[in-house]
Structure formats: C-alpha cells, structure tokens
C-alpha cells in the first residue's frame, strides 16, 4: 500500500519493513492493521475447518434425525404417508427416551444383582480394623 514499505512473506509469517520517518508511523501502522485483519480472517477460517469436534458431530447427527422425524410427523413435504406410520412416528422422541431409561434401569439392576461380594475379605477387614483400634487405644489415642 505505502510505497515506503516492503513486505516480506515466508510461509505463514509476514514481515512488514516500514519506513518510520520523523516519528510518523502511519505508513507502518496502516500496513500492520491490514495484514492483521486478513491474517485473523485466515486463522478463523482454519479454525472452522479443522475443529469438527465430537459435539459438532453429535449436533449434526441429531439434527439430521430430528429433521427426518419432523418431516414425517408434520408432513412437511406433503407426502401423505399411511396413517399408521404417522401414528408411530410422532411419539418417537419420547419413546426413545423411555427405552433409554428402561435400558439404564435394567443395567443398574443387573449389575447390583450380580455384584461380586467377598464376604470373607469383608470380615477379615473388619477384624483388622477392630485390632488396629484396640492397639491405638492402648497407646493413648482417643477415638
């Protein structure tokens, strides 16, 4: 932009060699500002491209499924599906929630029922605790 400036570019780095005359930095500052704005734009673009996070994936997937559900329930494309299919579709979100709840309950219940108790180890541990308490009481520690 300014004739008194030289711009050196190397890979992602850009250096502005500007002429600062008589404490007047305007030429240099304006060049820097221009580069900073375009540089930030490029950086932002890169960030949007390269961080397709797990959250974004889930949001994307759920919105696709949600769009399909809305299409069937509210008949947005005017497809006029048979009544039975529409009857099945509209409670689907609540149904999936209930199924997930049932699955969670069943998993918790099953793991409680099949938990591996070790009764001898428990009794042994309690005996050791009692022994330790006695020992410490003898040595003067107040419990």
């Amino acid at each position, binding site marked *: 932009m300014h004739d008194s400036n030289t711009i050196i570019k190397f890979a992602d780095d850009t250096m502005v060699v500007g002429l600062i005359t008589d404490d007047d930095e305007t030429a240099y500052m304006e060049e820097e500002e221009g580069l900073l704005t375009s540089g930030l734009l490029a950086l932002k673009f890169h960030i949007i491209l390269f961080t397709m996070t797990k959250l974004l994936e889930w949001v994307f997937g759920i919105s696709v499924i949600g769009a399909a559900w809305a299409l069937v329930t509210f008949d947005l494309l005017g497809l006029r599906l048979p*009544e*039975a*299919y529409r*009857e*099945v579709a509209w*409670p689907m979100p*609540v*149904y999936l*929630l*209930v*199924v997930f709840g*049932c*699955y969670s*309950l*069943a998993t*918790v*219940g*099953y*793991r*409680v*029922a*099949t*938990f*591996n*108790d070790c*009764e001898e180890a428990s009794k042994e541990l309690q005996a050791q605790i009692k022994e330790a308490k006695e020992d410490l009481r003898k040595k003067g520690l107040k419990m």
Partner: protein
Amino acid sequence: MATGADRAVGMSLVGFSLLLFTYYTIWVIILPFVDSDHVVHQYFLPREYSVILPGIAALILLLCVGTFIGVVTWKNRRPKVD
C-alpha cells in the same frame, strides 16, 4: 455372587424395566397396525397418554431431584465464621 437383598432388588429392577419396555413398545409401535375393533385395544389408554404420562413422570423426577438437592443444601448451611 451378590447376597439376598441385593439380588432381590436387582432382579426386580430388571423385571420392572422389561415389563415397562414391553408394554410401552406395544402401545407406541404395535397398536397403530392393529385393527381398531380388536380386543387388545381395551388394555391400553388413548394414544395421547403415551406422551403425557412419561412427561409427567419426568416432571416428578425433576421435582424429587430438586427437592433432594434443596434439602441437602439447607442441612449443610453453616453461618460464616468470623
């Protein structure tokens, strides 16, 4: 293996969730394909309740959780020590 009460509670949870799953699946997915004059329809409420009842259950659950948190927070309040 888990002992007496643990086994009973665990298995009853499994049984209850299986029952709930079966009833709800028949209600939501199978009934629309059954002729409206079939005798099985009398064992199920009208279709709107298949969404309203879980909604009410969720509200009650939220109320219980909120009340529990409130009670515990109230019990643990301590005046600031100077």
